[in-house]
């Protein structure tokens, strides 16, 4: 099948380009390391003893505990690792929720047009008119506090930009010859849309994924500050929020550890997102 060969070459081309770009490759490795850490923490291999007090309260960074200790004498390093699990899971689940909604609505609007399109466009215009933070807070009000709230609040509010992009791209594709050909051999609407058109707009989803992942990690901090975030376990947001009382006493290591952990992975996702866009967006080829 010709479309298959072509799409493979796009991905291979993108992969080769990504490997040539040292910065992007480093970012990919960093993201992979964070993912592995998150999985190991989730399995209880790493940082399972984060709750244990290992020394005096607010002990500054030392050789034994490179990021120091917090108010209860817990190792900030272990808390940072534990926070990685929260951050990565928030990034992943949030992105999956927003991709599911964004791609489905965008594809339906773009493909069917007419009243369906008008309805979906009205819905997301309405939705974006409400400030993001208000929606997040409102959802948190309804669901109560906790990790599930973070997932849903961030996921349900971050699909609009992807939906817009997919809608535009599907519109551009739906009258192309390959779609007509698929129709001519008897393919129905759903088959044309999901089997033929969607693989051709997949690059948008991938680029968007790396961006929404890091936005979610950053938003988790804000939710924690508002007291709506995860409860009863450390996250980078809670660590940064704790720092607002600690800094006046000169305790800077908890803020530093969480900020640094977040900076590295968010930076990696940003660079990766840019590199993916350069590699996958055919419009940018040759520039």
């Amino acid at each position, binding site marked *: 099948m010709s479309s298959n060969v072509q799409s493979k070459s796009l991905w291979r081309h993108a992969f080769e380009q990504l490997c040539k770009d040292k910065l992007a490759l480093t970012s990919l490795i960093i993201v992979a390391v964070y993912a592995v850490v998150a999985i190991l923490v989730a399995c209880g291999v790493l940082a399972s003893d984060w709750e244990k007090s290992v020394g005096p309260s607010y002990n500054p960074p030392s050789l034994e505990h490179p990021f120091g200790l917090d108010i209860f004498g817990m190792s900030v390093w272990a808390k940072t690792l534990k926070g990685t699990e929260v951050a990565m899971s928030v990034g992943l689940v949030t992105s999956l929720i927003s991709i599911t909604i964004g791609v489905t609505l965008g594809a339906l609007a773009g493909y069917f047009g007419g009243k369906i399109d008008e309805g979906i466009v009205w819905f997301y215009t309405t939705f974006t008119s*409400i*400030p993001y933070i208000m929606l997040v807070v409102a959802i948190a*009000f*309804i669901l109560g506090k906790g990790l599930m709230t973070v997932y849903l609040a961030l996921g349900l509010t971050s699909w609009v930009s992807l939906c817009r992009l997919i809608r535009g791209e599907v519109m551009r594709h739906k009258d192309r010859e390959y779609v007509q050909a698929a129709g001519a051999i008897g393919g129905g609407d759903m088959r044309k849309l999901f089997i033929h058109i969607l693989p051709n707009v997949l690059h948008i989803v991938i680029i968007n994924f790396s961006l929404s992942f890091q936005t979610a990690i950053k938003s988790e901090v804000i939710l924690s500050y508002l007291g709506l975030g995860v409860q009863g376990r450390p996250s980078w*947001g809670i660590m940064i929020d704790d720092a607002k009382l600690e800094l006046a006493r000169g305790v800077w290591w908890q803020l530093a550890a969480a900020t640094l952990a977040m900076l590295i992975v968010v*930076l990696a996702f940003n*660079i990766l997102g840019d590199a993916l866009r350069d590699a996958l967006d055919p419009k940018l080829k040759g520039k």
Partner: protein
Amino acid sequence: MNIYAYIFRRLLYVIPVILGVCAIIFLIFNVVAPDPALIILGKHATAEQVVEIRQQLGLNKPMLSQYFDIVRSAFTFDFGRSWSTKQEISEMIKAGAVPSATLSFPAFFISTILGISISLLVAFYRGSMFDKVTVVGCVTLMSVSSLAYILFGQWFFAYKLGWFEISGYDYGFPYFIPYILLPAIIWVMLSVGPDVRFYRTIMLDEIYQDYIRTARAKGLSERVILFKHVLKNAMIPIITYVVIQIPFLILGALLLESFFSIPGLGSITLNAINSSDFPVIRAMTVLSAVAYIIFSVITDVLYTLVDPRVRLS
């Protein structure tokens, strides 16, 4: 379709969007949110108390009339009274607007000018080391949590070094200036990264157009090309981007205002969130949504007036 018909239709479209926004707000606060009577009275309320407070808050009105109250407030800006301070919400908004504006407008103005200037420089030296370092620098700035900027700035520059006021606010020019300096600097740090990236993309989009090649071919200098041709054409997306950000200034910077104790709309909103003060949260949501809708109409209309390539459909 002529342009007036288009503008008229665009204005008409505001109505379903406002109705939709009010429907979402209504659904959230009046239908699915936990019962406000219980939030106010706590878990140990008696049935009579609940009935009484529901009466006071207007929660026993029919659903449809509660919905129309919200729609009406979007046009009259009469939002009722706050549950926690008992103040008239429209008065609270008037009082909060000034501190918010004194922080957000200067900060927004400076960061926009700075963003455009840096992106012009970067576009001029595109592909060079300077370009790459700036782009990576912007991404790094964007990757730090906004809360970390605020906490570190307040602790280090205001508390440790004593360069700025730690928090607080004073009304009237020029008394507010010392209080907004540090929050404004943090604002600029937060927005310059995304701004430069956005403006740079726009500039580069223009630079690769055919008419720029023509300009270069007829011997114009890079500087003339950049300022006379690129900047002029890039102005359309730039203005759109700037105008659409203005409604977000209304809520100010929630976190900045709250950390620096600036009694603006952002602080009011955060306090309302913390005390489950539904009428205030609802009012702020309606207010910013209406502002967003108005400004997106302005952007669309501006776009069609300025850019003849935009097809009216």
